């Protein structure tokens, strides 16, 4: 309200500009800006309590906005009644109306909009087709599986041809064993619906696989917003690297013969390092699970680390090691003999030095 900048709410798709949400005295969301273009799926991801669900609820009009603006399809909907926003919401529990059939659920929004009966029936049939529920049209939700209920909620939300589809933790309520298959199914239905979509999730795998762009939030603020590859290959900070890929991001100093990290206690030769451009200013070294290996060398190119823990992960043993206060994951072959401390070196080509563009 006190924001003097003109919020950009005129673009097509969804535009969230400088959104702030307060619950009592606590700011749940602070100055978050996210855009969802038509035909695009943006995944808002972050640990629990990061404000991602509040952001989605604000877009749906279910949570009051303390500052900033929300635009949808060129209209400013910041303070519009939820019934007039033109959003399609699929809540975490799917909220399928238990006292209506599958077809009745899908028709709900169309009845509320007083669509003529014949057009309503046609639209419901289309939605049943899209979500492969035609044979279940007469069933009550009580007789459906979790995945089927999700599809009913999706069909119901899509039936009203919303300007944006909002999915709140779409897979969290489902059996973990089935989640992978249902994620692929959901992804296929979303892309065939062709609707701008905002997905909220705490699971980085879901975000990577469902989002054409990812908005990563932490403690109410937006940390990074970009394509999955941008976030994967050039994380804004150590939190993003860790959250998304379990990777470690170290401050590095580049020299002609390589890079120095851990305050110069570890010098990595240039020939072992890949390099990549970063848009985040500083030179940093990105290490993933498979970037390091245990070595016998004990020169400056290796660093000594204490083994904190070792666990079998199937094709490898994953060591958790501590080197000068930084904790890394290292994969070693399952039959490797590991003592209480190890020498670590970079696997050539597997570690990336992120270098600011000149």
């Amino acid at each position, binding site marked *: 309200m006190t924001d003097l900048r003109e919020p950009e709410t005129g673009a097509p798709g969804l535009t969230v500009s400088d959104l702030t949400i307060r619950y009592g005295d606590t700011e749940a969301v602070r100055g978050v800006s996210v855009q969802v273009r038509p035909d695009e799926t943006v995944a808002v991801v972050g640990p629990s309590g990061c404000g991602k669900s509040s952001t989605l609820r604000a877009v*749906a*009009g*279910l949570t009051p906005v303390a500052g900033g603006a929300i635009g949808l399809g060129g209209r400013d909907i910041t303070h519009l*009644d*939820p*019934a*007039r*926003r033109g*959003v*399609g*919401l699929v*809540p*975490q*529990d799917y*909220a399928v*109306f*238990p*006292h209506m059939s599958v077809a009745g659920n899908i028709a*709900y*929004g169309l009845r*509320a*909009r007083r669509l003529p009966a014949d057009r309503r029936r046609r639209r419901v049939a289309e939605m049943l087709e899209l979500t492969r529920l035609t044979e279940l049209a007469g069933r*009550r939700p*009580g*007789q459906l599986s979790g995945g089927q209920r999700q599809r009913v*909620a999706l069909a*119901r*939300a899509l039936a*009203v041809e919303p300007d944006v589809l909002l999915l709140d933790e779409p897979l969290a309520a489902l059996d973990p064993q089935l989640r992978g298959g249902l994620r692929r199914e959901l992804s296929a239905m979303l892309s065939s619906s062709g609707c701008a979509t905002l997905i909220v999730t705490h699971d980085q795998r879901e975000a990577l696989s469902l989002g054409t762009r990812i908005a990563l939030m932490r403690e109410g603020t937006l940390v990074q917003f970009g394509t999955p590859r941008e976030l994967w290959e050039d994380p804004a900070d150590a939190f993003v690297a860790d959250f998304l890929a379990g990777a470690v991001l170290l401050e590095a100093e580049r020299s002609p013969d390589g890079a120095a990290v851990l305050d110069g206690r570890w010098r990595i030769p240039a020939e072992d390092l890949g390099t990549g451009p970063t848009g985040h200013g500083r030179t940093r070294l990105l290490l993933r699970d498979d970037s390091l290996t245990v070595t016998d060398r004990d020169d400056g190119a290796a660093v000594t680390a204490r083994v904190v823990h070792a666990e079998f992960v199937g094709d490898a043993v994953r060591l958790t090691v501590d080197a000068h206060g930084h904790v890394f994951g290292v994969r070693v072959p399952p039959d490797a003999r590991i003592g209480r401390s190890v020498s670590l070196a970079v696997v050539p080509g597997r570690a990336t030095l992120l270098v600011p563009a000149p």
Partner: protein
Amino acid sequence: MAPGTARVRLRTPPPWTAALPALAVIGLFSAYPVAVLVGNSLGLGSAPADGGPTLEHYADALASASVRESLAASALVAGVAVLATLVIAVPVVLHQARQDRAGAGGASTDALLTLPIALPGIIIGFFAIVLNGRTGLLAPLWEGFAGLAYTLPGLLVAYVYFSLPRVLGPLRAAAAGLPHSLTESARTLGASKARVLATVTLPLLLPALIETGGTAAAIALGGYGTVATLSEGIRLLPLDVANALTTGYRLAASSTLAVLLAAMAVAALVLGRGLGRLVGRAVAS
């Protein structure tokens, strides 16, 4: 300890043995007195006055105009009062559910609203007299208020007040049990608040409304204190039962009236539960 004595008794026993303690409580406190009462009313009592199986006591009771009037008045007062109570209670519990979600702790409001459950029926009758008795406090405002307490509208108001705190608790639990995401989803689908109420909230609350209403009606039917205080006016069934008992100790006749009253109350309760469950199944399956 001998082997075997420490064995776990986990095999499921036949249902009737498992239900034994509960059934004993029922038998001791319900079934036997009810059977005796019904027996009395059918002329099977052991008192020398009763002379063998007969329906004559029921015929007598139903032939009496005053009993028929009391029956009708009781049914009317209980039914209409509970309906009015539910109409008042629904917005209150929905409002409370909203407050709860917003975390705007309605604990004190809640306590105040259900406090009157502690007020005896006799006090509520007293309220009515104080306010709307023949020389009641409201009589100077409008002469219609004088003596209103003893009329049907007066009794209705008194019974609404009697039923309200009894209805709020269970209804509140039912309203709190409705997932908020249902109404939120309905709103985002384009339904107005009124439409959401009519198509989502009320249908899903209906089973609880019916069951709670039945129970409240049963308790209102049997509530003696209120009507006893207001006994100068319209007569309800409990008054007749008490009368039959005090004016000459005629066991069979008074048993008959007691059975009629109990049967009406139990019917209201059972009907409410049965219908509530039925509607619940239709609504939520």
